[in-house]
């Protein structure tokens, strides 16, 4: 028996990354900023999107792809405001690009200002997968504890922004925003931070204006390097 070692030296996700880059460029070409929202379950992704949809109403167009293991409850909540498609993973712990592309087709590939991808609630696996987003945002709720950035470094390292949610509960829980931000910025020094309460609307305007700035920056970059 002869043995032969074939040297490869390739990132296993290289092809997936290249596909994502192509899709990202296509979306940019249509003027769509894709935002990947990540957090643990129950951190308030859907509530943040409801508040965002209400803020953008008549001002901006948006669509949502929402990932869950089962049920279309989140899609039902969001479909009252904006075009939404539920991506049901049937047990898988994260979304991958083919599922997102299929969702876009189901949405009718709309030309919207913002495409939000609400990932499966999980601070681990979704961090490894590029879904063609221009902006990756991690949510951290005050009820989860301020120690999460240190525990899930990859998620915070790969995000551009962090939204601290459930601000209304801050007086009732032992959560230090300062400590959470400090820890997160040790891992990702450029992390932009927002504090919101989706229920009473605190911080939603700043968050939505940031999204608009990010979209403007994306369009500018696209036009400079078409």
């Amino acid at each position: 028996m002869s043995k032969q070692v074939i040297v490869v030296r390739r990132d296993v996700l290289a092809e997936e990354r290249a596909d994502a880059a192509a899709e990202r460029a296509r979306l940019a070409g249509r003027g769509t900023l894709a935002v990947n929202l990540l957090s643990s379950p129950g951190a308030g992704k859907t509530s943040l999107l409801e508040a965002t949809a209400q803020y953008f109403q008549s001002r901006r167009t948006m669509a949502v792809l929402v990932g869950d293991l089962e049920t279309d409850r989140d899609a039902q909540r969001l479909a009252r405001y904006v075009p939404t498609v539920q991506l049901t993973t049937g047990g898988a712990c994260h979304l991958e690009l083919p599922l997102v592309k299929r969702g876009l087709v189901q949405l009718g590939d709309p030309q919207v200002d913002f495409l939000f991808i609400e990932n499966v609630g999980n601070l681990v696996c979704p961090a490894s997968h590029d879904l063609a987003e221009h902006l990756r945002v991690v949510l951290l709720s005050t009820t989860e504890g301020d120690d999460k950035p240190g525990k899930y470094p990859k998620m915070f390292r790969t995000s551009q922004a962090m939204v601290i949610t459930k601000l209304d509960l801050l007086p009732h829980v032992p959560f230090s925003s300062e400590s959470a931000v400090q820890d997160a910025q040790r891992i990702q020094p450029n992390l932009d931070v927002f504090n919101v309460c989706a229920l009473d609307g605190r911080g939603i305007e700043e968050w939505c204006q940031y999204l608009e700035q990010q979209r403007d920056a994306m369009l500018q970059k696209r036009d400079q390097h078409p």
Partner: protein
Amino acid sequence: MHEWSFARKLLQQATGICHANGARHCLEVRVQIGPLSGIEATLLESAFEQLASDHELAPTRLVIERTPLVVRCRDCAAESELSDFDFYCRLCGGRAVQVVAGDQLQLVSVTVDDAALMIKGTT
């Protein structure tokens, strides 16, 4: 538990490489993981073992090498090996660092047992 998905991708890519090289069996798949790869070695191993056991390329062994997390400083260009997830340049203290190793699952090599290999290496 996304190690299943990674194990499947590994096996698919190894199969592609074997086919492209005219090999029928794969003896070993060698990978590297770093602290920021998001992969748990034991879980990847057991997922791969189960998927590979009745695969056309079997018997295939997965070998996992661990690599350190390395960053390069954008200010002074020095490379630092990080022992924790505090991202700063160990030489100048700057925080503008870029990860250059340790955040991926790298497919390093595939060892096959056939003599009739057409091409050495892949591109």
